[in-house]
């Protein structure tokens, strides 16, 4: 309820409005520090055990935690080291299960027990997070869920533990950079090309501490899953969060998945942006990020001689249903020339891909199809690279050692480019596949 005339309230962006609402403020400006109430919090089998350790340290000091702030607002996944890579990872999952049981957290997606998958994929696939909410997670790609009109930001495990105890956390209100993506989007261009192009332009610290908001006719026409690829990789530009204002595409996507009620937020007219960029997609080329930075980009055709050892279609960035459809379209009826691994991002997506015949296409091409896991994307297990190996991947990072040996190399690209490259064994533009 506003007690003063509305015209004295600052015009705010969607991010500012969500943070204002969550911190009980009428308005706020970039740079303000607020304690915001959290709507949802997520942890997985890497950040979860860290959180449990924070709890244990405090209990050693005599503090007793009989309950957490709100078990119904907490959800948990097993994704990084499943299937259990070794004894230690198995024990981390056991510790996580004990924790959720002890504190009454019901939403725990377990490997091998119905729906499970990569946390950022479940956030939208299972509608764990809704428009207008403040959502934090113990993983840097928590930004992904901002595509649903959510303030979504990654935190470390001390911060997640603090949220579990207090239901709130501090934020410095970020400035917003607006990216207007306009023009026609050719069929060979995916959201992955667009976000790589943007990171190439602004750099891997180009959005440090800031919000990246996406708009424009191309974004308006993008599906929900493609929008999620844009926000997913805002992390690679250093952004605090990525966000897209919710619209009919968002609401329609959610109608199929939940009947939960939510209060969407849109930015005010006249809201201030720190910078506005316009990105033209009409003439955009399929884009690849070379080792060892997501900002080190080239057109795929400029790299077409580059020999590869492996193609990887996986992760929260590049193994959603539409990513698998795009790859399968290229691979249908053809054989792969290099080791190719396909790991759908969630059990439900695996099932949908199977029902659509995509899994058959992949297997007939010679690719292996594995269980959902973060696995090799973060160099953890399930197909890491050896010394000198070169991989093209639908994932999000290619720092030294990211997917295995510190002297291995990863090229990042769209599912179309990765599938095309799998067929030739060299970096290949999808337009050049016969």
């Amino acid at each position: 309820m506003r007690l003063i005339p509305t015209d004295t309230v600052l015009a705010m962006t969607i991010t500012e409005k969500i943070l204002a609402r969550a911190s009980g403020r009428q308005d706020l400006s970039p740079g303000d520090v607020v304690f915001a109430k959290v709507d949802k919090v997520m942890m997985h089998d890497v950040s979860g055990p860290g959180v449990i350790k924070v709890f244990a340290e405090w209990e050693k000091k005599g503090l007793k935690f009989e309950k957490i702030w709100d078990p119904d607002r907490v959800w948990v996944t097993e994704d990084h080291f499943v299937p259990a890579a070794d004894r230690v990872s198995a024990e981390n999952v056991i510790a996580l299960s004990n924790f959720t049981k002890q504190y009454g957290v019901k939403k725990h997606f377990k490997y091998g027990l119905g729906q499970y998958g990569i946390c950022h994929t479940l956030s939208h696939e299972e509608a764990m997070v809704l428009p207008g909410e403040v959502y934090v997670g113990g993983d840097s790609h928590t930004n992904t869920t901002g595509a649903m009109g959510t303030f979504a930001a990654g935190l470390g495990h001390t911060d997640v533990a603090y949220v579990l105890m207090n239901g709130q956390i501090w934020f410095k209100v970020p400035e917003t950079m607006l990216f207007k993506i306009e023009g026609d989007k050719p069929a060979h261009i995916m959201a992955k090309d667009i976000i790589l192009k943007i990171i190439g332009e602004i750099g891997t610290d180009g959005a440090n501490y800031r919000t990246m908001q996406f708009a424009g006719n191309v974004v308006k026409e993008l599906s929900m899953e493609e929008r999620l690829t844009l926000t997913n990789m805002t992390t690679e530009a250093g952004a605090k969060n990525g966000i897209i204002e919710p619209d009919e595409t968002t609401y329609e996507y959610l109608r199929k998945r939940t009947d939960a009620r939510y209060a969407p937020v849109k930015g005010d007219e006249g809201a201030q942006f720190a910078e506005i960029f316009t990105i033209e997609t009409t003439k955009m080329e399929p884009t690849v990020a070379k080792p060892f930075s997501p900002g080190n980009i080239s057109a795929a055709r400029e790299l077409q001689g580059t020999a590869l050892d492996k193609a990887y279609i996986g992760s929260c960035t590049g193994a959603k249903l539409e990513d698998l459809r795009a790859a399968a379209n290229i691979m249908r009826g053809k054989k792969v020339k290099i080791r190719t691994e396909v790991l759908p991002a969630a059990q439900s997506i695996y099932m949908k891909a199977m029902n659509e015949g995509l899994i058959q296409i992949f297997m007939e091409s010679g690719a292996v199809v594995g269980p959902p896991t973060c696995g090799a994307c973060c160099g953890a297990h399930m197909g890491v690279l050896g010394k000198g190996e070169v991989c093209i991947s639908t994932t999000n990072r290619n720092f030294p050692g990211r997917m295995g040996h510190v002297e291995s190399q990863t090229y990042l690209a769209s599912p179309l480019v990765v599938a095309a490259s799998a067929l030739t064994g060299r970096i290949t533009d999808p337009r050049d596949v016969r």
Partner: protein
Amino acid sequence: MNKTLKGKVHKYDRDNIDTDVIIPGPYLKIHDHKELAKHALEGLDPKFPEKVQEGDFIVTGSNFGCGSSREHAPIALSQTGIRAILAPTFARIFYRNAVDGGYLLPIEIDRETVKKIADRDELEIDIAQNKITNVTKNEQYPMKPFPELIAKIVEAGGLMKYKP
């Protein structure tokens, strides 16, 4: 805040030292802090943990700690004995993990200052005065003061001990 830190510099003169280099992915399953320290900065300098003495500093380029939200990164570095990292900018999650977990201080200095400090120089950092003294070279440099909330969390020794 009334605190002076004293130690030797380990200089890594490059931008964008990321969390995969600070503590590679396979070690994310480890939550024993001392064990993590054995792998600190392994992707860049495998000998790093042996070089560090309690109280030392890292001086480096911009966007330090970019990439993952893994709190293992500031934990591993602090467990080797590192007390502060001096860089022009930090990636946001690394910064807040370092401060909120009370592991080490992320201190922002300008690029010119990074250039003036050499590997093995001995520094004294006066947090209250926002002043850095290079004991080896007998020079003084400014540091960017901590924002108000950060200063309070640092003073409390981490977010868990801070009372809003």
